[in-house]
C-alpha cells in the first residue's frame, strides 16, 4: 500500500480522535464507530484463522483443509471435535430470541471450564506461592552476623504491608479499635500500590501520545 496514503489515513484518524478534546463531534463519532467495526471484524477474522481453522476445521475436515492447515494432509477426521462444534453453534443461538435458552449450555461449558481452570491455578500461583513468598526473615544479617538495617526495614515493610492489606479486605469483622488502625494502614499500603500503577499508566499513555505526535510529525513532514 502507498506510504503517502497510509500517512494521510493515519493522520486523519488521529486528528479525528484527538478532536474529542475540544468536545464530542461528528468526526470523533465517525472514527469511534469505524474503530468498533474494524476491531470487531479484525478479532473475528484472526480468531477464525488462528484458532477455528487449525483446531476445529482442520481436525474435522483434514482433507478439505489440507491446503491451509499444515500437517492436515493424510490425517483422518477426529469426530470428537464435533462436541466443541456443537457447543459453539449452541452459543450462537443467543442471536435468535426463540432458541436463545440453548446458548446456556455452551455458556455453562465456558463458565464451568473457567471455574475448573481457575480454581487450582489461583490456589497455586496466586495464593500458596504468594503466601510462601511473604514468609521471609524480618531480621536480615550479613555473612559476619551484622544487622542489615535497610534490608530488614524493607522486609518488615513487605510483611506488615501484606498483613495490613489483607486485614483491610477482611470484612467479616467490623474495622474498629486496633483492627481499624491496622486496616487504615492497609489502605495506605494499597494507595502506594495504586499510585505506582497510576504512575505507570500515565507513562504508558504519554508514550502512546508521543507516538501519535511523531506520526503527525511524519505526516506534516511529507507535506512540507
Amino acid at each position, binding site marked *: 500500500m502507498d506510504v503517502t496514503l497510509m500517512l494521510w489515513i493515519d493522520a486523519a484518524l488521529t486528528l479525528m480522535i484527538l478532536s474529542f478534546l475540544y468536545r464530542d463531534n461528528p468526526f470523533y463519532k465517525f472514527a469511534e464507530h469505524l474503530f468498533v467495526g*474494524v476491531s470487531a471484524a479484525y478479532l473475528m477474522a484472526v480468531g477464525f484463522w488462528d484458532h477455528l481453522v487449525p483446531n476445529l476445521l482442520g481436525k474435522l475436515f483434514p482433507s478439505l483443509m489440507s491446503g491451509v492447515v499444515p500437517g492436515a494432509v493424510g490425517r483422518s477426521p477426529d469426530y470428537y471435535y464435533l462436541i466443541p462444534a456443537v457447543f459453539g453453534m449452541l452459543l450462537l443461538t443467543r442471536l435468535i430470541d426463540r432458541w436463545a435458552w440453548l446458548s446456556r449450555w455452551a455458556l*455453562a461449558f465456558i463458565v464451568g471450564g473457567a471455574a475448573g481452570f481457575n480454581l487450582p491455578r*489461583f490456589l497455586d500461583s496466586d495464593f500458596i506461592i504468594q503466601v510462601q513468598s511473604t514468609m521471609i526473615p524480618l531480621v536480615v544479617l550479613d555473612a559476619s552476623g551484622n544487622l542489615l538495617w535497610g534490608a530488614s526495614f524493607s522486609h518488615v515493610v*513487605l510483611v506488615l504491608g501484606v498483613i495490613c492489606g489483607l486485614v483491610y479486605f477482611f470484612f467479616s469483622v467490623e474495622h474498629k479499635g486496633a483492627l481499624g488502625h491496622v486496616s487504615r494502614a492497609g*489502605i495506605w499500603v494499597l494507595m*502506594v500500590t495504586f499510585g505506582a500503577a497510576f504512575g505507570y499508566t500515565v507513562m504508558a499513555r504519554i508514550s502512546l501520545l508521543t507516538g501519535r505526535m511523531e506520526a503527525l510529525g511524519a505526516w506534516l513532514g511529507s507535506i512540507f
Partner: protein
Amino acid sequence: MRRRIPLIITFIIGVVLITGYFVTRGPFNTLYESFSDYFAIITVFAFILGGGSLLKIHLKRVSSRAADWPYSVVTLVAFLVTLVIGLFKVGNPGGMSGEILASGSWLRFMFDGVYNPLSATMFSLLAFFVASASYRAFRARTKEATILLSAALVILLGRTPVGAWMTAWMPESLAFLELPNLANWIMAWPNTAGQRAIMIGIALGVIATSLRIILGIERNYLGRGE
C-alpha cells in the same frame, strides 16, 4: 431442563478440570487435555457471537432510523469490509494458504493503517483524562489521595532522566533518597506488599466463586427465567 442441564454441564466440566489438574495420568488427564482444547474453541465462537450481536444491534438502529443511525452505517460497512477481507484473505500475497497478517495483505493494511492509529490515539486520550483526574484527586486533600499521588510522582520522576538529574546532588550517604532509587524501593517493597495483598484477596475470591459455580450455588450466569 432449561436450567438443570447447564448446571450439570458446569459441574461435570469443573470437576473433570480440577481433577485433571491434580491427576496427571489416566482418563482424567486425557479429558483435561480434550476439554482444554474444546474450551479454547468454544471461546472463539464467543467472538463470532460478539460480531453477530454487533450486526444485529446496528442493523436495528439503521432500520428504525434511531438517533445517530448514519454512524451505525459506518460501523456496519467497516465491520463487513474488514470481515470479508479477513475471512477470504482478500489481497493476501500468499492466497488462502498465506499468513493471515502477511506483509502487504489488505488485512495488514487495515491493522496498520486503521486499527493501530485508532486504538493508540484512543488510549493516548486517557493521558489527558488521567491528568485531569489526578488534579481533582490532589484537590481532595485527603491523606489517601496524597499518598497515592506522592507514590505516582516518585515513580514517574524516578523512571525518567529528569528524576535522576533532580537528585544527583545528594551525598553518597543519602543515595537511597535519590528518585530512581526511591522509585525502585517503592516498586520492590510497599508496591509488592499491596499487590500481594490484592492477589491473595482475588485468589480467595476466585476459589470461592469457582466452587460456588461448580456446585450450582452461583447461578447468575444463567440469567433470569426459564
